[in-house]
């Protein structure tokens, strides 16, 4: 072996993303199917039913995958085991059910802190016209579906609030708000848990959206409660960090779409660029956010350190698009979709080195990837 072939080089050569990735693959919308890619072998296998399957979401223990799929008519939430067995469709009250997420209390950490980790599936349900969407919660233990937020209409894309640290730090129970019993709200949050969701608001004569905090019986405008944020801005893509100490979302506050972070001390625009900035995704450590931006002319993937608003490019080019960033469980890699080779394919970039690798090579679309959570006992 030559002298340059040092252990450091060996280590660098050995660096490779590990684990499994669920994603959607197909040649057209109708045949899109949830698949699982094993990074050790490079082999992908279908696990979804293949009927316009939507973005997969891993359960916090990495055992199951939830996704939406075409029904006749509408969309149904399905749950399948990671090996493709046990596929089942949830029973629904409404026709169009989509974008499932799992409850994640304490998950992503060493162990689940309590029993309800991964117990609930949250999703949007609607009749398929107008803005009548609701938040529905399916309890996988009792196998029952219930509307949350008191059945309020105009709510969508719920995500679980993993802890109440931020709401406690902001003394939510001491805030008075017309029509809201905040002490009762906090009590319900403490006993069952809560979700963050996008809510449609009527600002003057126009529609708007805002960040809502919801329990089974209530929904309150979180930003208006905790900050001076007006309801006239249009907010979207809400995501709390692992411990819910900070909540990222996008807003058109400031003239174009930017990523904001709500934290104990207030609200910060962490991107602040004349190009649109979209879809924030917290890294597992809660230090960095990956996001999409058009600052090089086309959709690209970047990361930002919110404490200083330092932005670094992950993969962006005027010649192709890159989107849907996802962090590896060890924070070492960012997984995303790119059209660099023509069709949308999955790629990973090593965060520290910028080393980019293509993971799929398939005629058609490979999109909406989700990295399987690490299961640590």
């Amino acid at each position, binding site marked *: 072996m030559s002298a340059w072939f040092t252990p450091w080089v060996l280590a660098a050569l050995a660096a490779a993303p590990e684990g499994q990735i669920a994603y*959607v693959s197909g*040649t*057209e*919308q*109708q045949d*899109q199917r949830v698949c699982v890619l094993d990074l050790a072998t490079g082999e992908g296998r279908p696990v979804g039913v293949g009927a*316009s399957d*939507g*973005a997969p979401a891993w359960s916090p223990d990495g055992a199951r995958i939830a996704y*939406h799929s*075409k029904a006749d008519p509408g*969309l149904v939430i399905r749950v399948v085991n990671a090996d493709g067995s046990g596929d089942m469709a949830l029973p629904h009250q409404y026709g*169009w059910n*989509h*974008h499932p997420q799992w409850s994640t209390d304490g998950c992503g950490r060493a162990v689940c802190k309590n029993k309800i980790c991964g117990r609930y599936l949250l999703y*949007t349900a*609607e009749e*398929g*016209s*107008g*803005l*009548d*969407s609701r938040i529905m919660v399916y309890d996988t233990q009792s196998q029952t579906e219930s509307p949350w937020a008191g059945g309020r209409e105009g709510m*969508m894309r719920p995500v679980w609030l993993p802890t109440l640290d931020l709401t406690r730090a902001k003394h939510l129970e001491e805030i008075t708000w017309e029509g809201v019993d905040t002490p009762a709200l906090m009590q319900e949050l403490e006993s069952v848990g809560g979700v963050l969701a*996008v809510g449609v608001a009527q600002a003057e004569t*126009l*529609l708007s959206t805002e960040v809502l905090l919801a329990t089974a019986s209530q929904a309150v405008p979180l930003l208006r409660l905790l900050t001076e944020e007006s309801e006239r801005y*249009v907010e*979207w893509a809400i995501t709390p960090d692992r411990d819910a100490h900070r909540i990222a979302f996008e807003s*058109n506050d400031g003239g*174009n*779409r930017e990523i904001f972070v709500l934290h104990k001390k207030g609200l910060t625009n962490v991107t602040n660029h004349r190009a*649109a900035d*979209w879809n924030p995704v917290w890294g597992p450590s809660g230090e960095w956010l990956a996001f*999409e931006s*058009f600052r090089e*002319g*086309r*959709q690209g993937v970047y990361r930002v350190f919110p404490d200083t608003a330092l932005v670094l490019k992950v993969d962006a080019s005027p*010649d*192709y*698009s890159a*989107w849907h960033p996802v962090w590896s469980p060890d924070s070492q890699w960012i997984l995303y979709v790119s*059209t*660099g*080779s*023509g*069709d*949308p394919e999955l790629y990973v970039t090593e965060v520290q080195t910028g080393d980019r690798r293509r993971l799929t090579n398939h005629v058609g*679309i490979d*999109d*909406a990837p989700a990295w399987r959570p690490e299961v640590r006992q």
Partner: protein
Amino acid sequence: MKDEGGKKGLTSWPKSMLLLWLGLAAVAAAREDDGRLGLLRTPNNGMPAIVQPGSTFVVETLEKAELSLLRDSARVPLGVTWKEAPGSRFRGEVSVPTHASAGAYALEAKTNGSTDTTARAVFIVDAFPDYYVLAHLSDTHIGSDRHAQASEVIVGQVISAVNASEASLALVTGDLADQGTPEQFQKFLEVLDTCRVPTFVCPGNHDREGQNYENYFGPVTYSFLYGRDGYLAFDTKDFVIADEVGTQDGELQVMRRAIKPQRWSMGFTHRYDASMGMRAQLTLFVDDPLDYLFFGHWHRENTAEEAIVPWGTTKVSVVPAAIDGAYRLIDVTESRVLFRPVQR
């Protein structure tokens, strides 16, 4: 025998023969043979280029090719600067000669031994007027047998009326075919090619049969300029989930920003309501609202309450179905865009 022999022989053919066979297959798939797009992808007669002499337009092809404009017996050779594009395609910037006369042209692409020609792909105009008339058709449902006359006869009459009008261009907002089959798209093209003005199409829910729409017309999301105005076509797909998978959301953002400086920015699609993909709505109606949105799907006009997108200021015009004999003329003026009453 041919299929059997070809299949058997493929593995033992030399590489050059295989490439020749693939090349012949591409010719067979050209627009002029069965109606599907072949070597020449864009522009085409559902997404033409409208240009002035001395200006440029962009072509996308499967291979580098010699390009010419064809009109009657005249042939106008075109200069092209080629660049490789993702997906094993080529993008060329084409210069239109200053001596080219106004009118509708077929675009011919020639490679070694193969030729692809698309009718009505390029329209040369001497000038873009500040005031012009736009025709809006939708829901042609070619192939439908639910009417007293054949669908192509009814839609042909609508196109004759557009030809007789002062319209400078026409938008056809989806449900072009009744079941989205190749045969119906081919029939639709035959009717469309009787239109004397440039025609821009987008897909509807009835057109969504595999990749048939893309095979006949190319991209479902695109933008173009007509003089000082910008137009943007998009696909509402399976509605509430339209913004989840694929490239459209990112493309819409780029295209919307690109036409933002224009006098008017106008979107056209098959269907709109507030439950459609939210990302597209944020891009088109919230962050940089389009001035106008044209669509169909409802087979009726919009009411006064439906005349504006609920997110903001984008004004709406919904045209009843062309399969019912309807179309609308729209005046595009310096101060505003005026929707004339629906014609039948």
